[in-house]
């Protein structure tokens, strides 16, 4: 039975999904490009403190940048091993990537909470608005990537359903705890978001359902075709993850290295 249309007609010899991933990344460049442009345009325009030079902590962020870079390294190793056929080693590296991603998110949660503690929230000034919304959306990308990678990793690593649920459960409770901390510290100053609880419930619902049902599925379909598909998908996840990394490279440069000394605007 001849099936998948894309296998028959393929003008350029590349996979449709990979092609679309690259188009998506090109498009996402504009997405983050717009956020970064906004940040740059609004540099030095805050009318009230705290200003970047009172808030930003370069050493800590350098460490978190390093962590994200290393997660990229882990990611490329994961893809490399899986493509050479070393499924298990590849999955370990995938898990390592996800964990490094989690650590990076931890840094971000700390940073958000700390800033809120120092009096900088999205509502404080224009620096707060641009900073939180931009890094927040980057953090959202990271979170999505971590979920994607964890599901990949455990689809092979864990043997029983019980183990899978255990791993996925623990990773997700970490994410939920982080999100909860972030909400309570920074975002609950935003009046329209009711409470961290509602978000955590949404989060548990979303993640739990996706996770467990996906697991049920993958345990059913361990055949050659699905492995092939997973390999392809891991490569896509890798592209996505590296993209998140390079976005952070730019944000780190623009927000931290270049403008960390910005004080009150000279009017």
């Amino acid at each position: 039975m001849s099936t998948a249309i894309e296998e028959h007609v393929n003008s350029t010899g590349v996979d449709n999904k990979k092609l679309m991933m690259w188009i998506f990344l090109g498009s996402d460049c504009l997405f983050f490009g717009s956020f970064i442009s906004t940040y740059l345009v609004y540099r030095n325009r805050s009318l009230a403190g705290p200003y970047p030079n009172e808030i930003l902590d370069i050493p800590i962020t350098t460490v978190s940048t390093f962590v994200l870079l290393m997660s990229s390294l882990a990611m490329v190793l994961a893809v490399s091993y899986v493509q050479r056929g070393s499924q298990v080693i590849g999955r370990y590296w995938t898990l390592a990537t996800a964990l490094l991603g989690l650590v990076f998110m931890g840094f971000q949660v700390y940073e958000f909470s700390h800033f809120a503690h120092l009096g900088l929230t999205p509502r404080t000034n224009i620096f707060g608005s641009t900073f939180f919304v931009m890094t927040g959306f980057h953090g959202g990308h990271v979170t999505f990537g971590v979920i994607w990678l964890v599901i990949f990793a455990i689809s092979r690593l864990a043997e029983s359903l019980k183990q899978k649920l255990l791993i996925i459960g623990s990773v997700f409770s970490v994410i939920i705890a982080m999100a909860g901390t972030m909400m309570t510290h920074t975002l609950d100053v935003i009046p329209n978001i009711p409470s961290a609880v509602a978000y955590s419930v949404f989060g548990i619902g979303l993640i739990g359902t996706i996770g467990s049902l996906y697991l049920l599925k993958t345990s059913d379909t361990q055949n050659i075709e699905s492995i092939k598909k997973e390999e392809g998908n891991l490569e896509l996840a890798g592209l996505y993850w590296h993209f998140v990394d390079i976005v952070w490279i730019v944000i780190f440069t623009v927000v931290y290295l270049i403008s960390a000394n910005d004080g009150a605007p000279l009017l």
Partner: protein
Amino acid sequence: MKKLFRNIWNQFLGHSTDGYFRVPDTPQDLPEPENDTPWAGTLKLSMEKFNKLTRKNGHGTPAFYAIVGLILAVITLVEFLIFYVESLGVLLIPIMLILSLMKFVIVVAFFMHLRFDNKLFTYLFFAGFILAAVIAVALLVLLAIKP
């Protein structure tokens, strides 16, 4: 003159003659380095090393990726150190931009395999990236100028 530039460009980017971003399969495919340039020998040597580290089908060895990762880490460290050099003044911004652009290119070229992959991807991705950069610069210029 034009030919010389094209040669350097091809060597630098590893274009094969058919215009694809593809590392030549064997060192013999490399164009002969020109003897009258002082760096010719170095280039050949490093390309051999590079080809040894990257496999034919466009996937690097773990060692290769580890080296790339190390380079990235070092650049980050350098950035961190430069940040505290106070005498730089205005120069800080271009230096930082160049360093981070290096990191950016390294990740895209090697981790995302863009250097070894179909050049179509390069066009698609950099269409977005360059446009985003142009927009950022244009907005900065437009909103910074107050008549």
